């Protein structure tokens, strides 16, 4: 009970506001990549704080390119926590995110020991299988004594069993390592502090109900016009020498027009997303302002950044 209380107390103090943004040119200290600001909607901030308070994973769905994956990075940045990112592939298994056991390595060491090529310390190492266990993202998050943000990206890519295999881990925040002896200290890994788990899904496949029940759910909506302008401003004042407001507004208007047209055509096809808008403006701002504004008033310039299929090209470019 005391341990649980300790867990609850420390998570209670974490509150995400979405206001703390990286400064110009700031880089991630782990991989050296440039950090960009992330402006979440008020509802998203609310539901993130709800997930932190209730200690439940948060499932985010939304169009591709709307910034689901960046949420976890933004939370980790603002709260100063470590981020453990787990990018799911179609061949991923649930165990791979908890720990890996290097069986082949152990066999190899045993072989070397048998042929007498190891020192005595190394030989002792072989005896304990725990030496060959390497914790992965969720395992490290559970083991750490400070809260961690865990990102499980694109969970619907994996096989249908995958979310079901994670139920115990997400619910009770513990897992068992099968390959070590019963008496080993790392037999059962319990989370000292409940991690903040953000799960994203592209909604290509349905997720099982038992899994959905344990998560909080939020659909990341496409931002409205004002918010889009805010996002563009935040992104581009940070990188180059600023960007003119007229260009931004005109570009956003054309973008929204295009998106509206796509919406009318059919709801199933891919619509232009926020990340494509940002790429597009990045290209546009390389040109002197007058030229860029001229281009925007005609046909959609650099359509390849926004339109990704031949059908779209034919439909929207010939319109003007």
């Amino acid at each position, binding site marked *: 009970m005391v341990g649980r209380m300790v867990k609850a107390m420390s998570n209670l103090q974490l509150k995400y506001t979405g206001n703390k943004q990286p400064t110009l040119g700031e880089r991630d200290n782990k991989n050296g990549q440039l950090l960009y600001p992330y402006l979440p909607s008020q509802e998203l901030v*609310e539901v993130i704080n709800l997930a932190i308070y209730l200690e439940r994973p948060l499932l985010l769905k939304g169009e591709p390119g709307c910034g689901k994956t960046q949420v976890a990075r933004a939370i980790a940045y603002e709260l100063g926590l470590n981020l453990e990112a787990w990018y799911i592939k179609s061949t991923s298994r649930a165990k791979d995110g908890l720990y890996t056991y290097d*069986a082949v390595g152990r066999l190899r060491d045993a072989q070397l020991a048998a042929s007498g090529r190891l020192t005595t310390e190394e030989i002792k190492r072989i005896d304990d299988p725990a030496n060959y266990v390497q914790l992965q993202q969720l395992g490290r998050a559970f083991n750490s004594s400070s809260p961690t943000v865990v990102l499980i990206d694109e969970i619907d890519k994996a096989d*249908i069993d995958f979310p079901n295999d994670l139920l115990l881990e997400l619910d009770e925040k513990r897992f068992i390592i099968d390959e070590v002896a019963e008496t080993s200290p790392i037999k059962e890994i319990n989370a000292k502090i409940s991690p903040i788990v953000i799960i994203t899904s592209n909604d290509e496949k349905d997720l099982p109900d038992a899994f959905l029940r344990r998560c909080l759910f939020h659909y990341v909506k496409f931002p409205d016009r004002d918010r889009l302008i805010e996002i563009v401003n935040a992104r581009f004042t940070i990188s180059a020498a600023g960007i003119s407001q007229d260009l931004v507004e005109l570009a956003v208007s054309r973008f929204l027009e295009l998106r509206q047209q796509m919406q009318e055509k059919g709801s199933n096809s891919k619509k232009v997303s926020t990340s494509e808008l940002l790429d597009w403006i990045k290209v546009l701002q390389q040109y002197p302002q007058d030229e860029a504004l001229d281009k925007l008033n005609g046909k959609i310039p650099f359509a390849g950044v926004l339109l990704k299929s031949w059908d779209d090209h034919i439909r929207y470019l010939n319109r003007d």
Partner: protein
Amino acid sequence: MPVTNYQSVNSEINDLPLLELFTRLREAGMPLGIGEYELLVKALQGGFGIRDRSTLARLCRSLWVKSPDEDSIFSYHFEQLIGSAEASGSSALIETPDKGSDSKVPVSIPWLIALTLVGVGIGIYVAFSRTIDPPPKLPLPPTGTPTKNPNATVAPAPIPPVVTQPSSPSIGDYLAWGLVFLGLASLTTWFAWKILINSRSNQPIAKSTKSTELIQTVNDEMQIAKALKSSQNIRRDLFTSTTEFFPVTQRQMKQSWRHLRRMVREGIPTELDLEATIRQIGKEGILLNPVLTPRRINRTQLLLLIDRDGSMVPFHSLTDRLADTATREGKLGDAGIYYFHNCPIDYLYQDPHHSLAETISSILPNLGKNQTVVLIISDAGAARGRYNPERIELTQSFLNLLKKQVRNVAWLNPMPRSRWARTTAAEIALNVPMFEVSRQGLDGAIDRLRGRYSHVEGMQQ
């Protein structure tokens, strides 16, 4: 801290927040449990969702709503109970007066009935008592009666009934008839009001559903759940618009499709095969190389062939639902869905309207023999109940061609098994395992596609 939370919840049973909403959502078929409710209470105690109605709605949505269908049901019930979350929601304006009048009418109706009956009763009684007066005073028998027979008993003189003339109309009469008239008038107004209420109370349901867009079709399993409940308490506001009455609900379809999988070890050997390695060490005495084996992956691709138009028109929504759930479960892989009409002869069509054709001879060789399984959805002539030898032959030749190219074939017939006898379907069922569309039928078909022969089906009646 958790202990006090539970205590405070238990001690104020009547103050449990949103319990009514939770119960209604459960009755509507949403998969919610006690855990979900406790989560809501915990969040409320943590200070979430108490600012205004829309924040509360968002809180409940994040916790309880996991799909768009559930969202519409949630919005509907939330608005019913708590009122519209948006300030401009017209449903709120329409709901509250009717809610008020609905609650007023049941209260006032008994009083109104009593009043009218009393009024009518009093009025009639008084009115008639005026017209039929009580017996008047009798004229006294004359004193000078002969006393010839003093022996005769002096019987009291019979009282002759005397009908007096009706006296002139007085205030009392007016009062009496007035009461009768009042009673009848109030009866009439009560009836009229009741009819008006009935016709008006139909509207708020329609209006509020429009405002929450409940006219879009609702998930059929929730409707079935409601149909079970509604036999116990028939409330008009529990019925939502749906046109789906499928023999297999969407959730059941999804679960059945999930069974269609075949885990084989394919690809690059990366995993250690422990038993094989140990065996090798035993054989050779030393460990030379660990034996590696590829990982298991799901290698099933489903090819769906759907009969469309003609006798299959009533089943279009069913086949669409099957195709949709199969796609969303990711079963189709590279194979996909093709359409045909009655019997696939030379061409299969990529779309339901038979416009994009592909020859069978170009589709079949591209299917991986070990991976592809084929499910044909067609009534096979059972819908119209006819026996068509030509159709049997064409179908047979197609099936022969198909069986060589794929691993397993199964046939789903939307008509129930009892309707197959003496039709084309019965003949076709002799050559290919045919199942009706029900939970067991769909599971049986999928078992067959997996290569499991669970019981003899389609062969015996």
